[in-house]
């Protein structure tokens, strides 16, 4: 006899059967720009004619909807839920259900929320699903590895030694788990900054330093308007990285 079996994991593979690749934007550190990179990466993929989805897995602090200017409200449902179509991408966030309310979630609740989203969301055919990962190396990082073992990680750091310290631990975990890592992106790089810490960090793990994104003062005012986000210097620097990721 089987007792108390959670049925949701059994359909995750089927739900993602039309998704050619899953790209997790990870860091293990908050404040390095994961959400900006993930959201803009999705926008640039759509710009390049790719069918791209974006899943915000920062379950307790989602912000991708702010970057995209997406409406908050329940997604439509038929044979599951349909991610919202916005700015040329398919987008799903816990914010669609939560609005502006705050949900404090412990580990088991995080896992349940992630499983529920993966079990009921119908992504359809996508060239890539971009996942915006939360800060830290907690439940979501472990659950993504468990339930999406083929997901590749794009790791974001800033030149700050504090960021590099946390990102090093993230890379160490991904390495131990054997998770595919596409490379490291250096964010918030000042023009006068000639530090090489992020490049050295990538090299220490045998990874490529895919490029540097500028500290762009125009990005803040562009938030909420996808065409303005795509027009920033930040997006311009990310564009060749997006081309490489989606084309690889």
């Amino acid at each position, binding site marked *: *006899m*089987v*007792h*108390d*079996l*959670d*049925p*949701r*994991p*059994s*359909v995750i593979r*089927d*739900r993602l059967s039309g998704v050619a690749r899953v790209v997790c934007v990870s860091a293990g550190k908050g404040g390095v720009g994961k959400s900006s990179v993930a959201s803009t990466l999705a926008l640039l993929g759509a710009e390049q004619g790719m069918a791209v989805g974006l899943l915000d897995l920062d379950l307790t602090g989602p912000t991708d909807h702010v970057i995209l200017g997406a409406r908050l409200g*329940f997604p439509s*449902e*038929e*044979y*599951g*839920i349909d991610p919202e179509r916005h700015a040329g991408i398919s987008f799903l966030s*816990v914010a669609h*259900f*939560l*609005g502006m*309310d*705050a*949900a*404090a*979630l*412990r580990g088991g*609740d*995080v896992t*349940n*929320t992630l499983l*529920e*989203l993966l*079990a*009921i969301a*119908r992504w359809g055919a996508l060239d890539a699903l971009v996942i915006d990962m939360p800060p830290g190396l907690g439940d979501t990082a472990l659950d993504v590895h468990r339930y999406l073992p083929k997901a590749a990680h794009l790791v974001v750091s800033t030149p700050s030694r504090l960021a590099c310290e946390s990102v090093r631990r993230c890379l160490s975990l991904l390495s131990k788990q054997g998770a595919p890592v596409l490379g490291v992106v250096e964010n918030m790089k000042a023009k006068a900054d000639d530090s090489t810490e992020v490049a050295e960090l990538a090299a220490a793990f045998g990874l490529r330093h895919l490029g540097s994104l500028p500290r762009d003062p125009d990005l803040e005012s562009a938030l909420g308007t996808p065409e303005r986000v795509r027009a920033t210097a930040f997006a311009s620097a990310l564009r060749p990285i997006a081309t490489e990721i989606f084309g690889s």
Partner: protein
Amino acid sequence: MHELALAEAVLSAAREVAEREGLERVTKVAVRLGALQRISVPTFEFCVNEVRPGAGSKLAEADVQVEIEPVELACRPCGRHFGIEQANALEGDRAEAVHFIPELVHAFIACPDCASVDFEVVKGRGVLIASIEGEGGHGA
């Protein structure tokens, strides 16, 4: 209705168990629906029949029995056990949000004694397979 996706998950998991256990056919799948998610038994039974595989499959004749499991919540700071009816009523969009993702209940209700949102959903969360029975294998 997104319940179809959850019904699919139940049948998919039952099929996996049947294959793993070498069952020729599944005779019974007992499903518990946590009252927190507010899925009615007739709705879920309808969804199961909509997605049930056809004749010849191991699940074609399975008796899918569905029952509602009451909600039990336990406050971590003060230890109070309470049900959903003892907390703030969930209505409108809040009920709909919890219907989609039961964990979002943490955003909308609190312990009736100490007002903490740090509570555990002890039981009655969502869709769970209580048991699977079949014939022809080494027992599932």
